[in-house]
Structure formats: structure tokens, C-alpha cells
């Protein structure tokens, strides 16, 4: 049997095994599949595959002469080679070889107005430091839909109105009218002459609220407030209550970031899902977004991940640091579930 024939059979065998591994990996789920494909025994498999690819270039003239064949085989070689060098194991190897402390991926959790250079690595439970700090100026969510207000009456009747200021809306069954007087982005109270007066503050936090006037049939106008952050209050002596219905369908998660190095602002950008910030060999991805439990109007922000520049081969050196990042899908899913529950409920 000639060497060519041998290599031929080897390729077929390797491909068949690769298919079996991949099907198996698909049933494992992403996390376990990643661990499986990065395991030491699999490294041998990648090595043999690489070897056969390289040998193919020597053995088959058509791989060198026909452009299409050369492109696809060369591409596979590049992807495979880059994948091996850029894997966790490859990265550890380079760290030892060059005695450096670079890292591949991690997570930062920042509150609004907070800055940090500490990146928590997920894989190794260690904390790495960036040579610069990242400051979260502002984090916000954009929605497709608008907020609304729902009125509840004692006899289980409820009624929804859009969040538009001004218009007087009739409540069904001739119960009266309701009108939105003011919309607040960041509701605060201040004391003026012993009276508490609501106002819209400029601060970084936010506390969306609406001021309503409800006039029941045959009654006097009454003022009430609804807040996004605070659930509906039961109001003693009243036959109605009102609730802020927050928008549900997320359009985008965004963050205004600043990169500060040696006390100087060196870069500023708004990141969003699918639009990372790139600085100093790192990519910073919008990962998750959540509100804080600590303070009523405090916004909490989760996770930006540093990452690798567009290195096609996947090679990572001190200058080419890479990262994993997750989309906000998980969050999106959650929102969708909540919405379904809401609809169902």
C-alpha cells in the first residue's frame, strides 16, 4: 500500500471520528463540550489531524495547484493551528515559556460611576489586573415598547393606559377619568417651606415615575405616584390602586465606558451587544445587566469581559489576549419568560 493510499484512509478515518466526537459534543452542552475538546487526549487528535493536513500538502500536488483546494485546506490548517495555540492549554504553555502573567478571559462587574482594573477569571478563580482602569459612566437598557400604567379597582377590574402625559382618559363603566400629569426620569423629593415637593434629579441613578390625577365619578381629583422600582402600594381607604408596568421587550443593553490610564482619559465609547470596546489588546463586551438590591434607586451593572483583538489564527501572546463573552440572551430569555407569565397571569 502506497503512502498516499495510507494517508487517504487516515483522512477518512479521522473525519469519521471527528463527526462522532462532534455529535457526542452536541449532546453534552457547550460547557462540557468545550472541556472535552480541550482535553489532553483530544490534543493528540488535533495534532494528528494537523499532521495529516500538512502531509496532504506534500503528498497531493492538487492541493498546491488548485486555488480552491489550497484555500480550503490552508484555511483548515490555520483554524486548527490557531485553535491549538489559542486554547487554554496553549495559553498556559506560552505563559510558562515567556514567564508572563497574561490571561485569556474574565469578567468585570461594575456599578454606575465605578471604575476598576480587576478582572475575575472564570476558569481559574483568580483575579487579574489590567494595566488601565475601566469606568462605567452609565448603563442603560433600550426597549421596543413603552411603559404603561395599570389601574386596579376593588372589584377586580383593571385598566391599562399608555404613559403619555396630558391626555385625560375615561375609565370604563363611567367610573371617572385619569390623567398623567408629569413623567419623571429620576424622581426625588425635596423640602421646600416644610412641604415635600417632587422633582426630576440629574444624578446618575434613575427612578422612573409618573404623577397621576384620578377623578372618580362624583369625587374630587386625587394625586398619586407610580414608580418603576417600587411595587404597587395598597392605599388604605381607596377603592383603586395604580401600578407602573415597565417596558418588557429589550432592544439593546448599552454602557458608556471610559478607559483611564495613569489618571488620564484615553478612550471613551458606548458599548452594546455585538459592539465591544477595544483597547490595549482587550475587547470589552456587554455581558449582563441587572438592577441592584441594595438601594431603591441604585443601578447595578454586571460584566464586561476583556478580550482578544481580531487575531485570525487565534494566536494569543501578551499583546493578543483573548476573552470569552456571553450575550445577554440569558437575560433576554428571562425577560421573555416574565412576559409570558405576565400574559398568562
Amino acid at each position, binding site marked *: 500500500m502506497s503512502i498516499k493510499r495510507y494517508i487517504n484512509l487516515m483522512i477518512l478515518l479521522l*473525519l469519521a471520528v471527528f463527526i462522532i466526537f462532534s455529535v457526542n459534543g*452536541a449532546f453534552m*452542552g457547550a460547557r462540557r463540550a468545550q472541556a472535552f475538546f480541550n482535553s489532553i487526549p483530544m490534543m493528540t487528535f488535533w495534532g494528528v489531524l494537523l499532521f495529516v493536513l500538512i502531509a496532504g500538502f506534500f503528498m497531493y500536488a492538487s492541493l498546491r495547484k488548485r486555488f480552491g483546494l489550497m484555500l480550503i485546506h490552508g484555511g483548515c490548517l490555520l483554524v486548527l493551528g490557531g485553535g491549538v495555540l489559542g486554547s487554554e492549554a496553549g495559553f498556559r504553555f506560552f505563559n510558562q515559556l515567556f514567564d508572563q502573567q497574561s490571561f485569556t478571559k474574565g469578567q468585570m462587574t461594575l456599578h454606575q460611576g465605578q471604575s476598576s482594573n480587576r478582572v475575575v477569571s472564570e476558569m481559574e478563580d483568580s483575579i487579574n489586573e489590567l494595566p488601565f482602569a475601566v469606568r462605567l459612566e452609565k448603563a442603560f437598557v433600550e426597549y*421596543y415598547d413603552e411603559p404603561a400604567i395599570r389601574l386596579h379597582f376593588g372589584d377586580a377590574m383593571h385598566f391599562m393606559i399608555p404613559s403619555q402625559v396630558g391626555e385625560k382618559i375615561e375609565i370604563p363603566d363611567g367610573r371617572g377619568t385619569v390623567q398623567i400629569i408629569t413623567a419623571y426620569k429620576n424622581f426625588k423629593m425635596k423640602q421646600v417651606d416644610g412641604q415635600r415637593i417632587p422633582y426630576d434629579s440629574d444624578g446618575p441613578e434613575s427612578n422612573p415615575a409618573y404623577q397621576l390625577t384620578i377623578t372618580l365619578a362624583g369625587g374630587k381629583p386625587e394625586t398619586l405616584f407610580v414608580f418603576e422600582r417600587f411595587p404597587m402600594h395598597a392605599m388604605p381607604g381607596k377603592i383603586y390602586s395604580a401600578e407602573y408596568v415597565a417596558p418588557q421587550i429589550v432592544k439593546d443593553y448599552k454602557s458608556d465606558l471610559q478607559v483611564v490610564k495613569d489618571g488620564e482619559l484615553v478612550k471613551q465609547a458606548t458599548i452594546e451587544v455585538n459592539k465591544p470596546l477595544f483597547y490595549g489588546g482587550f475587547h470589552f463586551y456587554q455581558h449582563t445587566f441587572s438592577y441592584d438590591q441594595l438601594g431603591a434607586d441604585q443601578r447595578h451593572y454586571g460584566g464586561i469581559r476583556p478580550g482578544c483583538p481580531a487575531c485570525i489564527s487565534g494566536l494569543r501572546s501578551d499583546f493578543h489576549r483573548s476573552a470569552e463573552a456571553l*450575550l445577554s440572551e440569558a437575560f*433576554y430569555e428571562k425577560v421573555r419568560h416574565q412576559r409570558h407569565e405576565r400574559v398568562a397571569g
Partner: protein
Amino acid sequence: MIIKPDIQGYLIYSTMLGYLTVLLMALKYPKQAKVLFVSSFLVSSAALIYRWSVVGHLPMQNMFEVFLFLGFCIWPIHIFSKKILRTNHSVLMMIDGAIGVVVLFPAGFIFNHHPQFLPPALQYWLFGPHVAAYMLAYIFMTKAAVFALGGLILSSRNMPSNNTMADSGYQLIAAGFPLLTLGLFLGSIWGKYAWGDWWGWDPKELWSLVCWLVYVLYLHVRFAWPRRQQIHNVLNIIGLVCIIITLLWVNLSKLFPGLHNYTS
């Protein structure tokens, strides 16, 4: 089974009726079938454009939209295959008409068409090209598998023209394979911008890798044993089975949770 008694539904059903008539008329009245095929394509374009205007984004987000798009791809790929294949035009029209009816059936009767907003994850310029490359590849591969099946049936009955069947299968795979590769490549670029990694070992990714690998295996087997056409045909059909798993099972089954589950 969901029947859609609205404009969207009527457009899909008339396209399906058109494709079905093409399938029935192709042998006896090839000229009329040709005209009807073009008109069905125009109706399917209208269905796609209508959907686009309703949802306000590229209609490739969920299962319904994907199958609608597949139905739209039929005629352009038919014209392309007519150029590269030596198959009789009527037979090719019959095959394409049949594929058209099959791919539009899920859009017409199975998946619901409630408009959905585009989630943040899908708002990227590669969304269209990544999905479109795959969908075009899938139509090529489906047609290739039809030829492979034809080849298997003909040879089991010891009938001739088995060679051209396997050859046509190869020609179609040779056209679809670069598109399959392009889909993988674009997805990987997108992954870098969205997740920070070229590859995420997600079930959908792995199944699409399996599809790609099966066709790679097909091409290498064909190179190693040029005359074993039955094996080529079988691999060709396995390829389609993997595509169906990638497209349907991975998204619909709860067995494979992952980042590619945008459908509801």
C-alpha cells in the same frame, strides 16, 4: 397545524399551489410550467417582502421566517442548477417544485407567524449574510440528496442513468459546500464580536460542524473511491439528515440548550 387566514398565509399558500402545479405540469407542459415557476417565485418574493414590512427587520429570525426564506430561494437556485447540471429541464423543474412545496409547508402550516422583535443578540450586520449563506447551501444540499436518492432507487432497479444522478449530486454539493463553509466562517467572525470567541461549542455550532464534516467526508470518499457511487449517494443523504437535525431538532428540542435558540 396552523392555518393562516391572512395576507401572509394567502401569499404562502398561492406560492405552494404554484410550485405544486409546476411539479404536476413540468413533464407535459414544460413551457407553461416555466412561466408558472417564475410567477410563483414572484409571489414568494411578495410573501417575503410583506413579512419584512410587518416585522421591520430581515425576516430570518425564527422558524417561520427561515422556511419562508427557503421557499423564496427555490427559483434562483433552480436557474443556477439548470446552468451547472445536464439534467433534463422538466425533471429539474419537478424536483424544485417538490422541494418548494416541502420547504414552504412548515411556514404555511406548522410554525406560527406572530411578529417578533429582533433581540439585541441578532442586531448585527452579519445576521443576514450568515443565515442566508446557510439557507442557500441547505437548498443545494437538499436537491443533491434528491438526486442521490434517485440514484439509489434507479440502481436498486438496475436502471441506467445512475451515473448522471450521482454526478448531479456532486455538482450540487460542489456548489453548496462553499456556501456552507461561508456560513461557518461568517458565524465565527460574528461570534468574535458578540461573545469574544470564534467558536463556542454550542450544540447548534457542533451540529453545523457535523454537517460540514459529513460533506467533507463525502468529498474525500469520492476522491478515494471514485466509482463507489452508492456510498457517495448514501453519504449525500446522511448529509441532508444532519442538516435537518441542525435546522429543526437542535432549535426545537430541549435536548440542546444553547446560544443559538432564538426561536419560540
